[in-house]
């Protein structure tokens, strides 16, 4: 049984630089210029799962991302880890997409790949954290979906047994390929790229597809194709600000404890 696997990966700002990201009050868009970016950590588990499945069953792995030209960095990283093909869906018309418009673009890109058995996603992107793209992609493609998979096993004839995390436990789920899954970080420990892998990756072609190449109606993607949009930003009014103490630690702490007792925070 050979498996054709697609892994959806996203480039996100480095979490250590989150506080540098600013919402532009004028345009109400996120400004992440100049902020270091990385491969979305949850997606590493999706890549790792694909690599392990390929080792076991053979087949091909295609990494797909919708993102700006700079995202070619993570497409190269995917090559370094061992995927067979990296495809970046890249067009200014994709900008400003909400999750539905993102899922649509990914679906159209994936439909061009021919027969696909398994599509793997992370549980969430660190900068959006919605977890919506995977399930929406599945519905658009008409594939079944299992979310938050923490353990999986593929049996003969393409039957998949999975453990799906829920509150206070998990569901045992059975399905059959083709499938879209989102995998949690419990599922595996992602490998690091090898030096040879990294060297070879620079030689490999990153396929870049734009809306023309994909034959996508621009009205369906990007900000145009997004049902939701930002309508404004506001400062949350927090009138809680209390006393600020500063100075000699001993003295400050004594004052603080007294105040905490007054507030009945200490018993």
């Amino acid at each position: 049984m050979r498996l054709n696997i697609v892994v959806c990966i996203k480039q996100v700002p480095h979490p250590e630089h989150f506080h540098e990201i600013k919402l532009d009050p004028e345009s109400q868009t996120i400004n992440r210029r100049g902020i270091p970016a990385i491969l979305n950590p949850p997606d590493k588990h999706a890549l790792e799962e694909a690599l392990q499945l390929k080792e076991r069953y053979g087949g091909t792995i295609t990494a797909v991302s919708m993102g700006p030209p700079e995202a070619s960095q993570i497409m190269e990283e995917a090559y370094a880890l061992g995927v067979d093909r990296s495809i970046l869906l890249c067009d200014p018309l994709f900008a400003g997409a909400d999750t539905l418009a993102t899922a649509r673009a990914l679906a159209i890109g994936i439909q061009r790949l021919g027969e696909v058995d398994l599509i793997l996603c992370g549980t969430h992107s660190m900068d959006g954290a919605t977890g919506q793209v995977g399930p929406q992609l599945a519905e658009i493609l008409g594939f079944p979906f299992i979310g938050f998979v923490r353990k999986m096993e593929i049996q003969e004839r393409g039957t998949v047994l999975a453990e799906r995390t829920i509150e206070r436990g998990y569901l045992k789920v059975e399905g059959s390929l083709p499938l879209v899954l989102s995998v949690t970080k419990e599922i595996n420990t992602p490998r690091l790229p090898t030096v040879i892998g990294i060297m070879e990756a620079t030689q490999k072609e990153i396929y870049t597809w734009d809306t023309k190449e994909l034959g996508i109606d621009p009205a369906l993607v990007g900000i145009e194709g997004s049902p939701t949009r930002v309508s404004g930003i506001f400062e949350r009014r927090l009138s809680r600000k209390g006393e600020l103490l500063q100075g000699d630690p001993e003295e400050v702490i004594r004052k603080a404890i007294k105040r905490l007792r007054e507030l009945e925070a200490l018993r």
Partner: protein
Amino acid sequence: MSSKNEIWIWAEQRQERIEPSSIELIEKGKELAELLSSSLAAVYIGGSGERIEELFEYGVPKVYLLHHPELVLYQGGPYSILFSRLVAKYQPQVILMSTTYLGLELAPRVAALTGAGLTAHCVDLFVERHKDGHILVQVVPGWGGNLMVKIVCPERRPQMATVKAGIFEKPQRRPGASGEVVSNPVRLDELDWRVKAIELIEEEEDRSLEEADVIVCGGWGVKGAGVMDDLQKLAETLKGAVAGTRPLVDAGLIAENQMIGISGKTVNPRLFISLGASGASHFTTGFLKSKVIFSIDQNPNAQIFEVSDLGIVGDLKKVLPVLVDELERYMQSRG
């Protein structure tokens, strides 16, 4: 009143018991219904619906009931289709689900099937005038300080949102209250069973954080100052629980299920102590309802002080050990 344009909540069940996080949506749903001159209804998909009076008792006037023994466990394909058909038939204007593992899957699936706009992890919802009508405003934490972002869905209907669990309060229960049940037939052979849940396995859940009276929460500054041990000691002294911000979790110093914030837990203890955290709204959203918030940070302009009843500006390396000592003494003196 017609059934069109209602406000819906998904009443998630587990073994036919309604999840508390769904009950939390009821008050907000009613408030929105009033503002949008509409009414609230719940959608219940399950095995029998034998306990749906609970929804009436918590104030839901109407329940759309879809039941079949094969639907006791959450079945992603069938639930998505059943829910979407209900949407097509009754055309609600707003649908709210809680950010449970299942809500986070069902909401996007229904949104994709119906073309609805969907916003994740909302911390507030309200209504604004828009063109010739009213529109739902969905609030999510934004970047930088206390900025909040308003998201709307101008054209497509319904407007869908998942609501961060723990943000809204559970309403009063009025035993004996009743309401309208709208039953819709379920035909199994029309549904998509390519994926099937076969068993629910219960596991013990760590609720020490939600139940703690005192929470000592570390931010990235704790790592920088190298005072993880003191943080632990402070928690022990106060018989409190340890928690952390995302960077501390990412660094592996705090367990994933001890994270506070929009992607972590929502807590409201008697005393919340924040150490070396800047106070990003993604984080502060998770503990704003604590009785008393006390924080320490070396940056006098840190946003965390805006949400604190008491703050100390100082280096944790110097301040924290003194705090631990003094509190130990204080606690001992209290016996």
